[in-house]
């Protein structure tokens, strides 16, 4: 039941991120059309695209991207056995969870403190625009906690056998 709910949640998040990405693309084309064909550039389109993009990036990272899609250094990890891997993963998740949790209140305060500032073109409140970052930051803590639970559970071997998949890293 719980895993089905989680699956449904991830799937919905993926559909939303895909649609938002498509919207970004359409806005891009609309902006170009307005600028070059109609001769009347849309002042707000670039900013709106950037806002959507930030939300797509941080929320996709928070809810859609799986751990195996992340780029990691596996030099040491590949050399050791299952139990050592479990220890490495647990120590990593604990370190990330604690650090991000300690920083979370400050991150939250910093973003909410921006309520007086507004974006240039759309005049949207910056705290609202940037809130995706707080969600992302909190998601890191939650994901680390879930991972610790899974590593402590009976199926911990599933956690340490997944190979990573770097094909989403198209930076180079």
């Amino acid at each position, binding site marked *: 039941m719980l895993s089905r709910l989680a699956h449904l949640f991830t799937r919905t998040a993926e559909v939303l991120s895909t649609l938002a990405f*498509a919207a970004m693309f359409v806005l891009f084309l609309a902006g170009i059309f307005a600028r070059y064909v109609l001769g009347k550039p849309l002042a707000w389109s670039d900013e709106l*695209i950037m806002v959507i*993009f930030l939300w797509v990036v941080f929320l996709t990272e928070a809810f859609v991207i799986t751990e195996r899609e992340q780029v990691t250094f596996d030099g040491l990890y590949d050399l050791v056995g299952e139990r050592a891997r479990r220890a490495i993963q647990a120590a990593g998740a604990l370190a990330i969870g604690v650090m991000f949790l300690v920083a979370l209140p400050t991150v939250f305060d*910093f973003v909410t403190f921006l309520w007086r500032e507004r974006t240039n073109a759309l005049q949207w409140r910056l705290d609202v625009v940037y809130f995706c970052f707080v969600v992302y930051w909190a998601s890191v803590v939650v994901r680390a906690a879930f991972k610790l639970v899974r590593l402590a559970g009976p199926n911990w071997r599933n956690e340490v056998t997944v190979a990573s998949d770097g094909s989403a*890293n198209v930076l180079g």
Partner: protein
Amino acid sequence: MKDPVLWMCVAFVVFAMLRFSIALMMFSCGLVYLWASRQDIGLIVDQTLNSAFQLNVLLAVPMFILAGNVMNASTISERIWAAADAVIGRTRAGLGHVTVLMNVVISSMSGSAVSDAAGAGMVAIQMMRKVGNYPAGLAVAITAAASCLGPVIPPSIPMVIYAILSGASVGALFLAGVIPGLLMAVSLSVLIAWIGWRRNLPYGKSVTWRELPCVFARAAIPMTLPVVLLGGIWGGVFTPTEAAAVAAFWALLIGMFIYRNLGPKTLFAVFAVSARQSTVVMMLIVSSFIVNFALEREGVAAGLAGWIEHLNLSPLGFQLVVNVAFLILGTVLDGAVLLLVFVPVLLPAAKSLGIDLVHFGVVVIINFMIAQITPPYGLILFVLSALTGVPVREINREIWQFCVPLTVVLFLLVLFPAITLWLPWVFGYKG
């Protein structure tokens, strides 16, 4: 070295061993730095979001990713393969040469080697395995090496990122990549010819004169893509970001209305994978901002520049040292860290030595590409191994020989900057 930076370096090593993903690692290193230097943690938000929000050029990255994925989903790679095969396939080790030539063409439409390897590269591997009966390791190694052309021949995602970091012009960088990319292709072909002769790789089949026009006609439409993309940028019509969006749109039109192989389902998949890939890449970029902020605030780059000045290193000597260091670091570090963290630290030194930043950028990016295919840590090797099922060990046995000609080209470019800069100069770049 000052204490907070030292703490950050220690954290970097520890977090790497604990298998942090690179984006989380950079954020965590930023946290450690801010704690160690008793600064406000909120600076992470400030550096990540305010920097990203003001960098409109960043939006070129998702658009180039989208354009590449649209191209992979329509059958553009197969058509270009057929045309390249008709040109050069009949020679000994013909399919190896065809792979290189196909990558030259695909590179002029896509900006990422990983995406080229996973898309067009899979077509090449299949042909080399099935038609040419090449050993699996060799087929994958040829494809991995040829995919390195992707970010060197424009358009290029790492060049866009480098332009943001250095302030160099994207248009000039794109022009500067053309000749080095072609040189890399020639050097790979020379090696493939030699391997073909030594290991007796088969001749490819020849295409008759009568079939030629048809094969070329099938590839002609996709060839309009680089014309729109690069012509738009160099002609000053579009900004790189707009050009990338227009190219994606163009590829979409070709796939939907001319080839008719992009249905709603495929289209959704294309956008979904583009969103994912853009996210992974953008997380790497935005998380590096806080590390760069730390290195800048602590004066690491300026200190390095001063130290290098003190060493009386010539510009050439500096570039040789940097490139040798990058080649060594590239075997174990991910290319993203080299480009996003090490390059910004080196830029002030390069500037003060009077090195042309466009030239420096092209050289560094080629080095970064070599890093992606040098074992033990080479991202492209891992991706191709995962997609083809060929064990990394088998690929590693073959790939090292391809690193040699690419490294030779790299040092040729370092020694003779005019090779890189000639084309930008012709188009009026003053550097």
